[in-house]
């Protein structure tokens, strides 16, 4: 049984058909990536999984349980944490408060403190800035904060939307190293990226999206080798 299973998903924005008959699955313990151009439906897929959007058809199962009709605040409790595109940190709160918001669904103070320690280990820079307002952080730091915040719910599955967007190449490397670190500690990752090269390099399995449908899928290593992917997404 897959950890996450999407079957025949169709999502609309008004009259725009954003996702067409999509089926995909994520195996526990893997890093799975969705790659593709702007507007291919990557973000929409993640927002549908986390409950911010609804599919008109089909089903979404997580750990064998249907979550298709659950709203976002309950899906977090089930163990899916979504780190959204554009970071969406709470600019009017401090770094520490942002991280505490990530643990909103949890009650045990001691366990929350442990998670906070783990997040600060992944992102030492956040610890240095824990009292600072999130709005005053640099883009890279905000990305780290958004990821740290998503980890604070202690998710089984982490949905990461464009973690490299707008970052300098050196920071992109750092962020991807941290994703691998997080994965090694036992979190399954579903990664959305425009940076196909970086995404494929750390993924076990990958889906290539085009205009709302899955155009190609396969083990990441095989996709890197394929002529088609090279031409279309890896620049030659």
């Amino acid at each position, binding site marked *: 049984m897959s950890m996450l299973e999407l079957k025949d998903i169709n999502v609309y924005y008004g009259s725009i058909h954003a996702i067409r008959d999509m089926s995909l699955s994520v195996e526990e313990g893997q890093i799975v990536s969705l790659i593709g151009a702007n507007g291919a439906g990557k973000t929409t897929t993640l927002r549908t999984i986390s409950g911010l959007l609804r599919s008109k058809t089909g089903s979404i199962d997580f750990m064998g349980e249907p979550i298709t009709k659950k709203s976002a605040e309950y899906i*977090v409790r089930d163990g899916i944490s979504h780190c959204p595109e554009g970071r969406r940190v709470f600019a009017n709160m401090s770094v520490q408060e942002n991280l505490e*918001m990530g643990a909103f669904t949890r009650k045990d103070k001691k366990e929350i403190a442990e998670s906070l320690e783990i997040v600060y280990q992944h992102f030492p820079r956040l610890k240095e800035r824990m009292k600072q307002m999130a709005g005053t952080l640099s883009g890279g730091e905000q990305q780290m904060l958004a990821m740290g915040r998503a980890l604070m719910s202690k998710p089984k599955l982490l949905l990461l939307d464009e973690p490299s967007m707008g970052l300098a190449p050196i920071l992109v490397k750092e962020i991807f190293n941290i994703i691998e670190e997080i994965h090694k500690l036992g979190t399954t990752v579903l990664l959305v990226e425009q940076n196909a090269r970086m995404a494929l390099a750390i993924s076990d399995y990958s889906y290539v999206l085009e205009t709302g449908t899955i155009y190609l899928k396969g083990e990441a290593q095989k996709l890197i080798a394929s002529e088609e992917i090279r031409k279309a997404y890896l620049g030659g």
Partner: protein
Amino acid sequence: MMDGIFVLQFGQQLVNGISLGSIYALIALGYTMVYGIMKLINFAHGDIYMVGAYAGFFAATATDLPFIACIICAMAVTGVLGIVVERLAYKPLRHSPKIAILTTAIGVSLFLEYTTMLILSPQPRTFPQLINNTIYNWGGIVISLQQIIILVTAIVLMIVLTYVVNYTKMGKAMRAVSYDPDAAQLMGINVDKTISFTFFMGSSLAGAAGVLVGIYYNSIEPLMGIMPGMKAFIAAVLGGIGIIPGAMTGGIILGIVEAMVSGFISSTFRDAAAFAILIIILLIKPTGLLGKNEHEKV
């Protein structure tokens, strides 16, 4: 000699202004909290304050409750009324264009005013004297016990609110939802519950203000919420709408300005002064005194 009288008059109007302003501040908080979380100017808010005055009136006349109990009773009634209004009138329109929900707010306002008239008659009623009208003369400046209690009550409520918003889980949820509802939902925050809670808090503060005004002016009537509602809205805009300390500051400043205008010029111009402030603030600093122009970081 003229200077002495001037100082005395100034001091007296300052006292009057601060006590009136603290009432504006209580009402303004509800406007600002609801705006913060829903980007809605809740035009029915002044009428919720009116219902609070009536709830306090019946608590005092029917059961002979003491002041504190009347305030709590009024706060409970208006708090629940706020939740009901939001659920029935605003929630179904949450994803509609802003103008639809704004028009609905005006409808709710009229509904509350005229339903109260229908049920309780349009006649003004005399609010019972819950607090002795003891007068203290402090070097020529006259302060009544009522003014002191109004100010103390308002300050206590504002301290409680500040604590709730900054340090409790629900308060943090409120701040998160008002900043970014989607991101808040991803944290596991129930947006509906948080909005209900915001309406409860804001409306119960207005209810408390209703009782305080009843005590201060001795008289209540179904349309009493219109003008203070507008004034409190001005206070909220003056301080920076959506900003909680802004509503408190705006309320106090507006109260002082009105008292000064009444004292030194003429009470005829009092309301004009309030609206002049609104126009000036919108021209010079539309984000309000404590408002910031927010830039998104890329």
